[in-house]
């Protein structure tokens, strides 16, 4: 789902006016990815859900001050990151998005001359609807995302699922664009590896 809202200005105006339907729509679109991202930062489901709920309250309280300098979802995720940081600090931890995870999962795939040791598989039946080992491929993908280190997970959610540009992801997470690219690369390779195990 590459979001951005077709008419963000209208949506913001409805939110400012306290329109419940508008909020429900926004909530449906963003709550699950917010919880998924926050779980990576907080590592406790109940606390993560609490932080996301606090974020929503903060979003609705300050929506009147949203100036559209970033996308609405970029603004919301930035608030989420701040809330998560504050919460982690209170619990004596810090959150950092700088390069986590070790080398990518590909290093062993090549011989000394940089050629494939084994030909990559053809994924001709890897579709979203397919059920493998009792779960849909999408559930497998979500499980793979949940297994990623926090920074990779956050980048994948913002970039591939929310469709944000690398620049905006960098701003939300307060890391460099180069770092966003490295993290996205690693995250995709990790999800690819999980899918390849099903192929």
């Amino acid at each position, binding site marked *: 789902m590459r979001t951005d809202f077709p008419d963000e200005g209208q949506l913001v105006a409805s939110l400012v006016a306290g329109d*419940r339907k508008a909020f429900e729509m926004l909530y449906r679109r963003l709550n699950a990815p917010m919880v998924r991202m926050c779980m990576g930062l907080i590592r406790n489901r109940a606390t993560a859900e609490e932080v996301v*709920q606090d974020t929503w309250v903060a979003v609705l309280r300050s929506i009147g001050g949203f100036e559209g300098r970033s996308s609405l979802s970029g603004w919301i995720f930035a608030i989420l990151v701040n809330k998560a940081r504050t919460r982690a600090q209170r619990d004596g931890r810090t959150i950092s998005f700088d390069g986590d995870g070790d080398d990518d999962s590909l290093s062993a795939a090549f011989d000394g001359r940089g050629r494939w040791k084994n030909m990559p598989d053809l994924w001709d039946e890897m579709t979203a609807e397919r059920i493998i080992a009792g779960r849909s491929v999408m559930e497998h993908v979500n499980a793979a995302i949940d297994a990623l280190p926090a920074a990779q997970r956050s980048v994948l959610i913002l970039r591939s699922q929310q469709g944000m540009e690398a620049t905006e992801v960098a701003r939300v997470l307060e890391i460099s664009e180069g770092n966003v690219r490295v993290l996205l690369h690693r995250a995709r390779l990790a999800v690819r590896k999980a899918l390849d195990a099903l192929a």
Partner: protein
Amino acid sequence: MMSCKEVAEKANAMVDGEVSAWEAMQLKVHLAMCKGCGRFVDQIRTTDELTAAAALDDMMSEADDGRINAILAELNQARHQGG
């Protein structure tokens, strides 16, 4: 000529349209001759599509009136406290 390893390292940037014209040409030349890399790039593309689709799957299952009510109640409370 690029090695398969180099192509694999560039595959994400290529899928995102973030390679230079020169790199794009080198990749094209390699991919025209190498079945393995062609498959790998397809895998990366599929991975990205399925990752995007997984968010949609999440969205469909999310319809939580209880939580929405709790957020709105908390919002009202915060407003009344005038903070």
